[in-house]
Every structure is written in C-alpha cells, then in structure tokens.
C-alpha cells in the first residue's frame, strides 16, 4: 500500500496570498480525506513586505509534526524564498517565477540557487495571472493550480474549497480565483510528470468532510462551547486573542455572556466571581497575563472556587517573543502564586486534545472546586490539523457536589470535611446554604481562623482532593506509544513537543533502537505512578522541551526522585525531530545522559 506524505512550503511577501494559498491547499486535502498538519509564519510587523511562509504536510496517515524538508517549494517572492531553497529536499520540486517583472540584480533570483537534484519548474505566474484575471494578484492561485495539476490532485475539490472560502464576497472573486487556478492546472497537465512525488487518494473512501482543518485555538473554542460555557472574560494578548474573539462572536448565539475586561486581573477576577456564583466561566491569556493572574488563582484555590484559565504560551520571559512558540510557563502554571496553592493543570499535545481538555476543564473545575489551567502554546494555537470533532461531545454539562448533597438538618458548612475532601458547594441564590468565602485561612464553616490545626487540616484537604483528578472518568492523563515492555530509550514529553517526539521515536525504531514515548497530559497533580512505571521500562529517559531551564524535567525529577536526560532549548520555533533523534541515539549507545541546553546544533 503506498502512502502519501507530501509537504508543501510556500514562501512569499505579505500581500502575495501565501497564506491564502496554503489555506486552500490544506482545506481541500482535508475535505477529500487526507490528514494534514500546517503551520504558517507571519511577518512580525503589521504593515510592510515581510516574509510569509506557509507549510502544509499532507498524508494518508495521521501526522503530528512537519518534516524538516519540503517535497515542494513554491516561491511567490524570490527575495523571501532564497533563504528557504535548501528546505526543498533532494529530488524535491521548486516552482518559481519565470519572468521577473524588472531586470533582476544578480543573485536575487531563485533560479540561481537551484541545487543539483532539485526539480525546478519555471512558471510565468504573473503573465498567466494577468491573462486570466487582468491583475497580477492571483499569482498564488496560478502556482497552486500548477502544483495540483503536476500531482494529479482532483481539480473539483479545489474549486469547491475556493467557492467556500469566498462565499461571502462578490461572485467575481471566486470565479477569478478559479480561472487563475485552472490556468496553472492546465499548464501542468502538459508538463513532464514526476515519478518520485506521488499523490494517491486515501485507500478507503474517507468520510469526506468529516475532518476539518482546525487550529488549536479554534479547537479550544469548540471545546468550551460543547461544554456549555456560560460566561467568558478576556483581555487581548498574542497568541490567545482569537479565543476571546471567537467566543465573543459565538457565545451570544447560545445565550452566553462575553466581556473584554480592562486587564488580566479583572478578567480572572470576574471569572472567579462568576465561578463562585455557579456559572461555567473561563478566561484566556498567555504567559505575561498568567503572571498577573496568579494572585486570583491563589484565591480560587484557597476559597475552592471552580474556574478555567486557557493559557497559550509564547517566548518569554517578560514580554518575550510574542509571535514565537515556547513551553516556558510550566513553572508559572504549576506553581505560580503565594503559598502552597496547588491547582489542576492540563496540557494538550495536539489540536484534538485542545478540544478535549478545554471541554473537560469545566467539569474538572466543578468536581474538584478549584482553578483549572489548560496550558497550550503558540504552535498549537496557530497550527492547523485535520481533526474530526465528535458530533456527540463527551463532556458532562453539570458536575460537582451541590447543596443537595448536604444534610439539611445539619447546619451548612461550606468546607465540611469529606472522605474525598470535596465539600458540598452552595451557590448564591440557594436557600439553606448561606456562607461567606474568603482568601484568609478558614475553618469548615468558612470563618477566618489561623489556628495551627485548622491550617494543617485545610492544606491537607485542598491538596488531597486533587488526587482524584488523576483518574477522572474516561480522561487519560498519560499515554504510551512505541515499543511495549522494556526499551533502551524512553522519551517523556508534554505539550506540542510530543508530535516531534513521535516522529523521532518512529525513526529511532526504524534504525533498530528499542524506543517508546509517553505523553503527560496532566502536569498538576503529576501522574507519578504512571511515569515511574514507564521509567522502570526504560534504560534511559529523555525529556525534550522548549524552554531553557528544563522545567518539565525538573518537575519529573523532583516528584519521582529519578534522573532524566534533558534536551531543553528555546529557538522560538517548534523542536526539530532530528534533534530529539540525535539524543535518543546518544542514549541508546549507552553513553549516558547529558544536559543539552545550549541549542539545537550541539556537537555530537
């Protein structure tokens, strides 16, 4: 059975339609049953001619990371594409402009940088665009059509996607884009076909349209909506702003209330107030906003209030790198705030889990009466994966012990002792449950108390109750992949890095290394039993993560007492599977663990 696995990189300048072309490509592929993962790079400035890069990997099998090399490179702007020529693999295709608009300076054309082994296709994109649409603006569609024709992709599927994309606009927009696309497609039909880059429709007739290209943020929003989110308070911050914006649009349609607050403190403050009052409430932010929110999180922990925080990490510390990805807010999410303020922290590893964990967060918050942080990152927020979200969401729309579980003949105590350390929770408006909550330490009835016994007892209660989250309903907090039983090297990863981990593990096993990987979806409390069982099977354990200090490695080591090898670096880009593979090989050769924190290109 032949497998399709093609990665297309499109480079252009802002305004060339680079991202739009990638958008049409990935949505078309998803609509005919392919799995796809895509991640775009935007210029840092709002105006100007900055570089855009759209990368899409199309496969007949599930994929969780982009390949380091592209099978096809399309240049819509040679100036920007020059830096990416090497990204096209040996025997990869390079499609570029045949007729530059003006005499070009030497060394400024892609044509001069084609490597031996590349398969170049020069295309008069500008002329073809002018001929079909009277404007050079559709060069991107000409190039995309050419690629589709070259690879025998179904023309109609592209037409359908283009029509859908420009649905709300004037008819000519759609017809012009289709005309430009067809011009490129027809030109390709006459061209020498490649044997090497193969395109095969999926073997089984895939349920067309079941999978939709979705970003992490879109999946988070769907999870919130499917879990019945009732109120949302947010403050704009890259890369989480789109969560607030999408909910601002969708929640009112379902009777929900959304408020853009004046800052992150008031956003989480309102979330806590609404959660206390019985509303399914959430806020969203990134690292700098989470830092502001820590005091309120402490209040939520101390007063046992359900609330959800959706956090997408970016380059730090401080203002950091707002448009680059990183995993350096683990410490903040797990530990941030004064005192022993443990809370629930879950971390999705792919776009589907963004949906799953955002949805489960609300019932977790209500069941365990505590803040829940869903910790994703910019790479997950902004990347597209083809996912099929369930028609019948798995989330419980109500959860947690309510006032009805309190014996009405007894006087009500908000923080009454219980076998599972979770007390029946009364909400404002309910008769028979009047109480006051406070950030001060308090006794069972909620009144302030700083006695030694009370504080020890309450700290124990607040921590013990969270243990139940490790085995909550059908939510798996760890998953193991790869070789079963004893292995030479085990990789323990969290967040988006798990995608690259799977890729590296696959290649390591192909090289004959016995290798397994475990993803950890709950960071607090940490599933130490499952992690230790995994480590028992491994000759050596590697923890790869996108931060400088090895925050997850530190967490694992501090809670299991066992050493791990680390691969910790911060380039602002997703981790490279090749770097993880290199460390796996190193460990498999029995050369012992080494700390790698200086960069991805460390010498062997």
């Amino acid at each position, binding site marked *: 059975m032949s497998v399709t696995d093609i990665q297309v990189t499109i480079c252009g300048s802002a305004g060339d339609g680079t991202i739009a072309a990638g958008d049409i490509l990935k949505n078309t592929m998803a609509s005919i049953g392919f799995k796809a993962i895509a991640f775009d790079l935007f210029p840092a400035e709002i105006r100007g001619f900055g570089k855009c890069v759209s990368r899409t990997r199309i496969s007949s099998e599930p994929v969780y990371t982009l390949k380091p090399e592209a099978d096809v490179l399309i240049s819509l702007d040679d100036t920007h594409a020059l830096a990416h020529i090497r990204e096209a693999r040996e025997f990869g295709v390079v499609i570029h402009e045949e007729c530059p608009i003006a005499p070009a300076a030497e060394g400024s054309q892609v044509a001069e940088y084609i490597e031996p082994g590349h398969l170049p296709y020069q295309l008069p994109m500008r002329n073809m665009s002018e001929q079909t649409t009277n404007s050079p603006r559709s060069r991107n569609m000409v190039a995309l059509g050419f690629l589709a024709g070259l690879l025998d992709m179904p023309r109609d599927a592209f037409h359908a996607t283009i029509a859908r994309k420009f649905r709300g606009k004037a008819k000519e927009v759609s017809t012009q884009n289709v005309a430009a696309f067809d011009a490129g497609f027809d030109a390709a039909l006459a061209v020498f076909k490649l044997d090497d880059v193969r395109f095969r429709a999926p073997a089984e007739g895939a349920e067309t349209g079941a999978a939709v290209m979705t970003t992490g943020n879109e999946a988070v929003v769907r999870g919130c909506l499917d879990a019945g989110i009732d109120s949302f*308070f947010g403050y704009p911050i890259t890369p989480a702003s789109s969560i607030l914006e999408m909910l601002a649009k969708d929640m009112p349609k379902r009777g929900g209330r959304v408020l853009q607050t004046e800052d992150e403190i008031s956003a989480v403050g309102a979330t806590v107030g609404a959660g206390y009052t019985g509303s399914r409430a959430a806020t969203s932010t990134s690292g700098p906003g989470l830092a502001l929110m820590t005091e*309120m999180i402490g209040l939520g922990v101390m007063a046992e209030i359900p609330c959800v925080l959706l956090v997408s990490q970016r380059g730090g510390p401080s203002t950091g790198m707002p448009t680059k990805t990183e995993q350096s807010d683990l410490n903040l999410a797990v530990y941030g705030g004064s005192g022993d303020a443990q809370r629930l922290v879950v971390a999705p590893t792919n776009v589907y889990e963004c949906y799953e964990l955002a949805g489960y967060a609300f019932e977790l918050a209500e069941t365990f009466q505590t803040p829940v942080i869903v910790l994703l990152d910019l790479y997950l927020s902004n990347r597209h994966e083809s996912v099929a979200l369930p028609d019948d969401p798995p989330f419980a729309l109500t959860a947690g012990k309510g006032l009805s579980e309190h014996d009405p003949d007894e006087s009500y105590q908000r923080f009454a002792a219980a076998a599972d350390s979770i007390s029946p929770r009364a909400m404002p408006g309910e008769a028979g449950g009047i*109480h006051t*909550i406070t*950030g001060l330490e308090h006794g069972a009835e909620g009144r302030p108390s700083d006695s030694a016994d009370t504080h020890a007892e309450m700290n124990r209660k607040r921590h013990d109750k969270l243990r139940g989250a490790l085995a909550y309903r059908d939510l798996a907090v760890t998953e193991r992949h790869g070789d079963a039983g004893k292995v030479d090297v085990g990789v323990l990863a969290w967040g988006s890095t798990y995608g690259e981990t799977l890729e590296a593990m696959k290649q390591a096993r192909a090289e004959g290394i016995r290798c397994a990987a475990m993803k950890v979806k709950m960071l607090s409390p940490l599933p130490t039993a499952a992690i230790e069982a995994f480590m028992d099977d491994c000759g050596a354990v590697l923890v790869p993560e996108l931060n400088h200090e090895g925050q997850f490695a530190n967490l694992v080591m501090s809670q299991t007492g066992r050493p791990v090898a680390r691969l910790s670096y911060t380039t602002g880009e997703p981790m490279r599977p090749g770097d993880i593979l290199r460390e796996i090989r190193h460990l498999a050769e029995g050369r012992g663990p080494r700390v790698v924190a200086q960069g991805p290109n460390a010498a062997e």
Partner: protein
Amino acid sequence: MADTAAQPIYLEDRIRKIEESGRLKHRSKALPTWCPGCGYYAMTEGVTLAVERLNIAPKDTVIVSGIGCASRFPFFMNAYGFHTLHGRTLPVATGVKIANDRLTVLVVGGDGDGFAIGGGHIPHAARRNIDITYLLFDNGIYGLTKGQTSPTSVVGFETKTTPYENRDVPLNPLMMLLSYGASWVGQAYAGHPHFLADMITDAIAHKGFSYLHIMSPCVTFDKTTNTYQNLGMKVRPMPDDHDPSDRMAAMALASEIDRPAEGLLYREDRPTLSDNLDAIIREAGGTPPPHRQPAAAE
C-alpha cells in the same frame, strides 16, 4: 416630636423593637470586630435596614468585600459573602452579577482598596453601568494595617509612612466617579446614621452602578483630621436647588471638598451591563437564559 418631656429609654424595649422589626435576620451571629465608635457600625446597620426595607432575601444577597477594615463586613451579615483580594472587589462583583442577575450585589471597601490598588477597575464598572452598589468607606487612612496614608489623605497628614507629613494632593473620588459615567453618585456621613441608611437604601434600589461615598472617622489611628468633630462641622445638607440630573452641577458640588454635601449628587437611568449583554444575545439570534439561577430547594 409628639411630647417634649424627656422620656427614659428602656433597653429591653429597644431590643424587643429591634427583634420585632425582623431585620436581624440579615445579621449573622458573629459580633463585629471593629473599634468602638467606628463608622462601620452605622454602615452595617444601614445595610441591614436597607435590605429589610427593600425586602431582599438573605439568600439573594451577595456582599463582596476587599482588604481592609471592610474585609470582615460579609461575616457580620447573614448573606452570601465573598471576601476577595485587595483592590479587586469590582471585577469579582462583576462576575457575580453577570452569572446571576437576580442577585443583589453589594460591594464594600475603603478608600485605599478602592482608589489606590483598585483605582483601575472603578472607571470600567461605572461606565459599563453594572447593576451593583459600591459602598465606599472613606476615612482617609489605612486602618487595618495600623495607620498609613491613603489616596484621600489630606496634605499635611502625618502617619507612619509620612512622618514628614503627606505632600500628595488627595484624589477627589466624587469628581472621578462623575467623570467615569456612574449613573448614581451619592455622599453620606457615618455620623448621620439615619440619613446614611436612607442613602444606602436608594443606592441599592437604583438600577445601575450606584456609588455611595461614606465619610467616616478612623477613631483609632486618626485623632486629628477626619474626626467626628471635624467631619460633623464640615458636612452640610444637599442644597435644595441642586438638580441631580445635572452632571456639571454635581461636579461643582463635588469640587467643594471643604463643605461636602450629603445626599444625591447625580442620577440617570440608562441600560445596565446585563441589559446590554442580553440585547447582544438577542441580536446574535440567541435567547437569554432564564436566568442563571440554580434550582433552589426552599
């Protein structure tokens, strides 16, 4: 007065009258811990009388307090209470109200909680016209932490943090709230407890964001400036000819800080935040849910 001869006041009669009034159902069993003579006693009685007069059930009342001497306020009342963080009462109260419009939400805090650390939240609560009542207790000092200057302390005030006398010009809270677009702005004085109770009643009854500025002494840490004697001499009745629908006239009154007028400075009626959020829901094609009230077992 019906008769002019002084009548003896019998304690038992007085207590029986208070019990018969029914308003003690709004008080908890906990005895207040404020200093004897503190204005918070008048404020507590005022709130008790107000919710009784307005027939608001304890279970439908939420009292949100900040950090300061106001902190313990909810514990002395029989109502749902939330003692929150310093300066963050308004965001929390916003969340409470948005979650359930049927609740009467009262916010209590001091001048430091409100205008120092909390200052950034006040404009937005006011301009959004959130239907909550903000009872601001202004004694020009930080009392709970034992006597430091606050944003409303007068120039020349000597405290532990200004041993060489305060030089910073104090804020004018009433002017600020009027410029923030608050739809109800009033002023009262803890030394006039009956009038204070009336003002609290009106503030709660108003549909929209009500700001009641309550002048009070800190009897323990300010023996020189905002005493009952000095405040009693400064406070004057609201001029009869003041038109509370005239914002500029209200600001003129607010600027007369040496002769603060007690009463209603300004009021207007306009859609509340909840009104607007429900209008948005309808415009989006949704239905406002009936409303976010947990099933009550009476």
